[in-house]
């Protein structure tokens, strides 16, 4: 239990640093911003209390906000993601449910399951984030294009990150 908590804190620091020091500087093709830090919320244990989930989402978003001077924007989007996560997990639940202590992991749940999980979650997060940033509907289609392309880029980068750093359990 304690080991799991330390791991989660470590993952939080790592994802925040990677996001603010690397991916915040990147802009593919002029308008695609990848955001990989929502992975932290997605990898939390399945049975985490909902209140704690919302609180952690808020803290994660706020930390990114403080680093990128976008006060409240990332917090709002990440809280939205935290709110949706129980519903998304329910939607994607395997026939015999989740294991009691499980966290959603790539190598346990299978590639296709995890891809669906990422696509739905990251799309919801980016949708909320980009429309909050623009805050008007006059550029509706352009913003939607940015959301879709950024979602695909973020998901791709997250999968790369998972294959690089989260593979030790593949052995058994």
């Amino acid at each position: 239990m304690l080991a799991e908590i330390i791991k989660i804190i470590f993952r939080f620091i790592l994802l925040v640093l990677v996001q603010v020091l690397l991916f915040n500087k990147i802009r593919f093709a002029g308008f695609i911003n990848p955001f990989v830090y929502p992975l932290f919320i997605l990898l939390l244990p399945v049975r985490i209390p909902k209140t704690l989930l919302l609180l952690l989402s808020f803290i994660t978003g706020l930390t990114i906000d403080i680093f990128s001077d976008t006060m409240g924007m990332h917090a709002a989007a990440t809280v939205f993601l935290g709110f949706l996560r129980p519903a998304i997990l329910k939607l994607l639940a395997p026939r015999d449910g989740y294991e009691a202590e499980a966290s959603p992991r790539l190598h346990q749940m299978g590639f296709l399951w995890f891809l669906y999980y990422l696509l739905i979650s990251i799309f919801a997060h980016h949708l909320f984030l980009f429309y909050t940033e623009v805050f008007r509907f006059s550029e509706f289609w352009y913003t939607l294009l940015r959301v879709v392309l950024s979602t695909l880029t973020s998901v791709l980068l997250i999968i790369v990150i998972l294959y690089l750093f989260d593979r030790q359990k593949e052995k058994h």
Partner: protein
Amino acid sequence: MRNLFLFLSRNYFFILFLLTEAVCFYLIAQNNTYHNAGMLNSANQVVASIYDGVSKVTDYLNLAENNRRLAEENAQLRAMIPASQFDTTVVKSTVSDTLHNQQYSYIEARVINNSTNRRNNYLTLNRGADAGIAPEMGVITGHGIIGIVKEVSAHYSTVISFLNTQSKVSVRFKKNNYNGSMIWDSDNGPTEATVIDIPRHVPFKKGDTLVTTAYSAYYPEGIMVGTVKEFYLDPGSNSYQIILNLSVGFNDVSYVYVVNNLLKAERKKLEDNLKDVSRNN
């Protein structure tokens, strides 16, 4: 009453979600004003010192380019000092320097964090109130304008980049005095800006230089902002829209000067009086 509690306990997750979102949007609204509680931004000591540490390392990557630029600027400045100019006038009397008061002083600073890929971009500088920086000072480099100081802490300050959808800078052609407004949208990208309100009778061509005007309380007059890339007549109006190549490379800016306009308070007071008068009439 019992029903109310029942309703709350059934929907507590949704209600908690709405409350948290309310806090978030309150923060967003707060951040759109000047001078808010200056803790939760990148001028914060912890955040800024992380950026500072990282930029100390990454600065080495741009060292050659920065040296070249500083040398270039030195050469330009050296050309301006009287010692490097041939004197064609015969000096008959000495000019008393009491005629010239210092209007601008400059504070050197290093950019330790910079964004160019959002709609509203910000920079963080490694100088703050201790170095004499205050909110609403202009920020420039040897190549052009950068933005306006937003908040300061003791050792750091945040700057609203010109790459911001709310930016509006008064500019004019260097060769004549016709002026317009320079604005920016994320469609422009970090290397371009748009100039509006140039009347259709103004003569200019591609490659012409635009500089800042004296209208601005933030920037000194005559600082280059960019050159004309392309232009077209606004349909249905009598003015040109000009796409500008910005003279500053926002993507790799590292050393900047913060402009302290020593006469700003005096000018502001005078201009505010004007507003009072017109309101009373």
